[in-house]
């Protein structure tokens, strides 16, 4: 039974956890430049120092409603398959330790979340969904399912 560190965040109104080793940093967005004619889950591109990152509209994946990305909105920076992405989140909380044994195997996340959630765990008596960040940027739009 191992304890892993997770970043707790709010996303589309729900509490989620992202494994901390996947989180490179948390930033307030600078200017976001929209990318025309591309997948609706892309909120745009933004600069982080000398790098250009792709901003994922995580909320669109869940609710199908695009979220406007303003300057100053919070994003979680993560690297997937050699590219860096920002994941839009509503709010970030603490980094906490969750034991895998605490995972609730018999509770399934709601259908809209199912593709993006690895498992459901409890933290301080509350249920949290552990996000699979790779699914969010897999390039398969939620519309296809």
């Amino acid at each position, binding site marked *: 039974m191992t304890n892993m560190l997770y970043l707790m965040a709010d996303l589309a109104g729900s509490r989620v956890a992202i494994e901390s080793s996947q989180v490179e940093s948390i930033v307030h967005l600078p200017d976001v*430049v929209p990318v025309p004619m*591309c*997948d609706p*889950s892309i909120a745009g*591109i*933004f600069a982080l120092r000398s*790098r*250009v990152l792709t901003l994922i509209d995580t909320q669109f994946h869940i609710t199908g409603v695009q979220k406007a990305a303003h300057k100053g909105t919070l994003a979680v920076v993560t690297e997937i398959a050699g*590219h860096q992405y920002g994941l839009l989140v509503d709010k970030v909380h603490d980094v906490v330790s969750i034991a895998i044994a605490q995972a609730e195997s018999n509770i399934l996340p709601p259908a809209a979340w199912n593709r993006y959630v690895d498992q459901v765990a409890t933290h301080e008596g509350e249920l949290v969904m552990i996000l699979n960040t790779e699914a969010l940027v897999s390039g398969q739009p939620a519309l296809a399912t």
Partner: protein
Amino acid sequence: MDDLIEDFIAETRETLEALTSQLVEWERRPNDRALLDSVFRFVHTVKGSCGFLSLPRLLRLSHAAEDVLSAARDGEVDVSAGLVTAVLAVIDRVAILTEALESGVSVYDDDDILTGALRQYLHDKPADLVTGPVGEAGDALAHEDSPLRGKARTVRVSLNLLDNLMSGVSDMVLARNEVSRQLRKVSSNADLDLSFARLSSSVAELRDAVGMMRMQHIDKLFSALPRLVRDIAIELGKEIELRIDGSEVEVDREMVEALRDPLTHILRNAADHGIESADERRAAGKDPVGHIRISARQSGNQIIIDIVDDGRGINVDKLGIRAIAANVTTIGEWQTMSPRARLNTIFTPGLSTADSVTSISGRGVGMDVVRNNLQAIGGTIELENYEGHGLKITLRLPLTLSIIAGLSVRAGTQIFGIARSSVVEMVSTSNPNATFEELGGRKIVRIRNKRYPFKSLAEILGIAHDAHTAGESRTLMVMRPAVGTTFVLEVAAVIDNEELVVKPGAPLVMGNGLFAGTSLPDNGRPMLLLDASGLGTAMGLSATDRDDHEINIRADVESKNNGPSALLFIATDGRKQGIRLSAIERMEDIEVTQIQYVGGRTRVSADGGLYDLWEYKSAPDDGLVKVLKLSDGDSACYLAVSDVIDIFSIAGDIVPSAQPEQHEGVVYAFGEPVELRNMFGFFETYDRTRRNRGSDALCFIDCPDDSHWERTILAPLLTASGYKVSFDEHDQSRAAIILQRDVAKARERATDPRAIHLRDSNHSLNAPIASIYRYDGVGLISAIEEKLAGCA
């Protein structure tokens, strides 16, 4: 232990790369001791390391090779082609096994066949040498040799670390730019500005140095080629000699990888189809040995690689028959094609002139793939065909993959970048040469009698345009993508002309095919780079190259009927004038702060150099001066203009001018007579200094060490006139001119035709020897010139 093995793998791999070309050379000159030694040394080192690391297979192989090579060194065995092949086979296996060590793949063990092949050459040797204990022969030599090999000192660094360093430096450059912006706002503190300038220049140096780290000798790519050609030649039973020039040219690391396949392919083609068999060559009166020459050179920001063979060239008629048979073209089309367009059909997929498919080439997947590969990295390929005598293939490649010359353009409110290489020309919508038409709903624009499909960028990208108010001028860009039809793109404005650092985009962003990547300009706002071919496809244009010959035809027609192109502009004195387009490198806006009056003329400091600026009258309000950058191929200068109007072609005769030094003549542009500027005057001054510099004659000044006048007045005068100056006695013998003030010395040298005596007085009456007054600069220089002319 793992570390040791890793080191062994890396070292073996590196030595192998360096060795490949030597191996082939060795075959040609089997008795070259130095080559034999280096092959032996390699095998010996491998053997030694393997014994230490207990790698039995590698040990057996290298031991067998070492035995044979050692015998060859002692002259007991003749080095034949067969022996070389056997040794190469072993070295190949060593390479495979070394790679396998790293990847953990198992390699089928038929090493006995290889070592057996080697032992044949030792048949008359006592058996115990063949199977004898490891490491007797040659040990002494290897020991004394290995430390002596002079090598540039290098350190092996992981690519990741290098990339981190790169991005760190880019961060630093951005931060510097930001600081510089902030400083400009607040500071007028000279000390601070000075320290910042120092920081800034060291950051720039650092960036250049890091940029160099990404560069590699193109030799890395070329070193494998001799072996390749050798193997093909042996397989085909031809004799081919490969010559490689310019191995020291440096290219981007990624470029080396990207070039490997196309170059290999071209070489295979040349060796297989290009070079004839020895009999055929003899019959054609050629040297029975085929020659292939590869040369690389850097020209500006391009790398140019020529691959020249002296084979049979491309049989264009045969190509035509194939092309017609394959429905690539029709007989009628073929007949109207220009020779160049005919030749270029070789790039059509599935077309080959090879009669037979060999194991090496001729399967019809050929030149089209080569061209696509090159275009993918921003390169081009050109053919020069000499039927019966050979083929010259020229590859032009950008210096690096990561920086492109780009334009930033605006669509709606958003800025996009685009590679300048895909833009043919830009025309304003207000230009009377551009007219709009419609064909069944598709918009067409006509620019100087040529029609192009047309769409606005905002429309393609689905960006809300700003209301298109009548009379507002927008910019039309004629785009010629690497693949696909030429078309016209309308943008709201062209913002800037800059070097863009290309960063790859995430797959999701690149997925729609419209973008080539992203870039981060100095303002810190990321920018999407447009992909010209993708835009064409999005406009519903076919992605084939059908208009390739159309362009060629057009170019042919243009050169026949229309004469050269010229640019119509308004000079700073308000008059309309023309200037030949070929002399213009580019148009740009420069800041007034870049302009200075120094050294007796107005100059612009740009791109780290100082250039003459002509006809600059006054600073405009916005602080930006429109200039044309002119180039004669070697040197450049700027010409200030009030505005640029359009391009026209010089048709009809050029009416002679009354002032030929200023105007070449008078030509008609859009029905109006305008003066065509004479380029000569702009470059004349430049050439004068260059010509002088070329003379390089050495002047030896004979004077005491402490003489002030010679050092501070005479030497600079001579240097400025383009002569080299020396005060060193040792240079006296090879000097072209000797100058002195000392009368005694002048007497000594009375018979030396090189000597010129300088006198202190203005009057020459009392002087015993012919002399020149030391402040008569003009007289001195002409005396030197006379002497030099006399010598010649």
